[in-house]
């Protein structure tokens, strides 16, 4: 109840993992941990979909849809139907 954060787009296929350890290094929320033979997905719910693991996984064993996550931008794009733009440079965005 009142928890919109129970699901996310993080997907992990251990069969593709070469145990390079990159995901557990880059994750700021300890979602992945080093394992014996493959990385372990230990706390999926803590994923904030920043995309660091996906970007740094050399075998594409990890997939996640990431975004900046600015609520204003998402609302604006939902209302106008335009592509999501985010802030960051004065008035221009």
């Amino acid at each position: 109840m009142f928890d919109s954060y129970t699901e996310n787009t993080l997907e992990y296929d251990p069969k593709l993992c070469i145990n390079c350890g990159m995901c557990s290094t880059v994750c700021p929320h300890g979602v992945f941990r080093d394992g014996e033979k493959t990385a372990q997905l230990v706390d999926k719910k803590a994923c904030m979909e920043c995309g660091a693991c996906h970007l740094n996984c050399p075998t594409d064993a990890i997939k996640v849809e990431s975004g900046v996550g600015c609520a204003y931008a998402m609302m604006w794009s939902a209302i106008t139907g335009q592509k999501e733009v985010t802030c960051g440079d004065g008035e221009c965005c």
Partner: protein
Amino acid sequence: MSILPKKEDSNCGTSCCGPAPMVLDLNTESLSKQKDIKIATSEITAANRLDHLFARLGIKRSEHRVEPGLYALGKPTRNSPVFVSANYTLSFDALRSSLVGIDGYILVLDTKGVNVWCAAGKGTFGTDELVFRIEVTGLADVVDHRVLIVPQLGATGVTAHKVKSRTGFKVEYGPVRASDLPEYMKDRRATDEMRRVRFTLLDRMVLAPVELLLMPKILLVVILGISLIGGVMGVFSAIVAILAGTILFPMLLPLLPTKDFSTKGFILGFLVILPFSWNAFMATDTIWWLHKGLALSFLLIMPPITAFFALNFTGASTFTSVVGVKKEIYRYVPIMALMFVIGVLLMIVLRLISITGGGSYV
């Protein structure tokens, strides 16, 4: 003469959100001869502190920039470590001030004056810009090793194995916080603690003023304009609702019940508006249902305002997922809008009745 883009050049014109600008008309020969190494110190001056304060307050927001390029810190040799940073003064200064007594190089990427994590999320602190900056600064000719220490949160924009294959440089992700770098540099290992983002009271509170000052002005105008219907109390309660959403909410975030930011905001908004509603409820100067109606309209209009700003704080938080924020928007924004509109209509009707003499029946 420097061939690096000048600070003025990196300021955006009309299309700042595009990919990082590339200097295309440079041949590789001039690139390899490029040795424009700037000097950095670990010292934070009074001018730096003033700049930090302005950055935190959102004053001249896009002007807190460092010139991108390669900086020498202390007396680096050909074997000294290379640290990568963003061209946002708060990022660059946090790095250099953490490296007291460490000789090294700082490679500053052009992130348009945005911090490492946000720029990485947008892709400006990314593989392409890092590869470009390595080439344009001739870094390969400055150091003998091939290792870059990149802040961990930069991993949201940088793909380590692609940087390696494109430049030969191995990306080593350092700790989340620059302040952990001296400890990290001892054995080049980050503890679990160094690898986690936090969101402490201080972290949240430094964001509050900028959230407040940079909120869309049109929102403020609309909210305060509409609250005029409720008279002095209406405007006063609207200000309280806005401040609750932008200052009190970040402060109390972990203490407020429920997971969703919107529901946390509704609860907080309800609590801060209760005194205004109670005041209207207990008034006796006109017909009774006018007061009860006014009390209700306060509870309908104001909590959604607090909840709306609370929802927007997800963007500043360090743990909300994109999917979750989207869900929150679809779940709660319609409720916020509905409550607000019904409340405003109710307040207008009550006002009209009391102005046209409805209250004289008392």
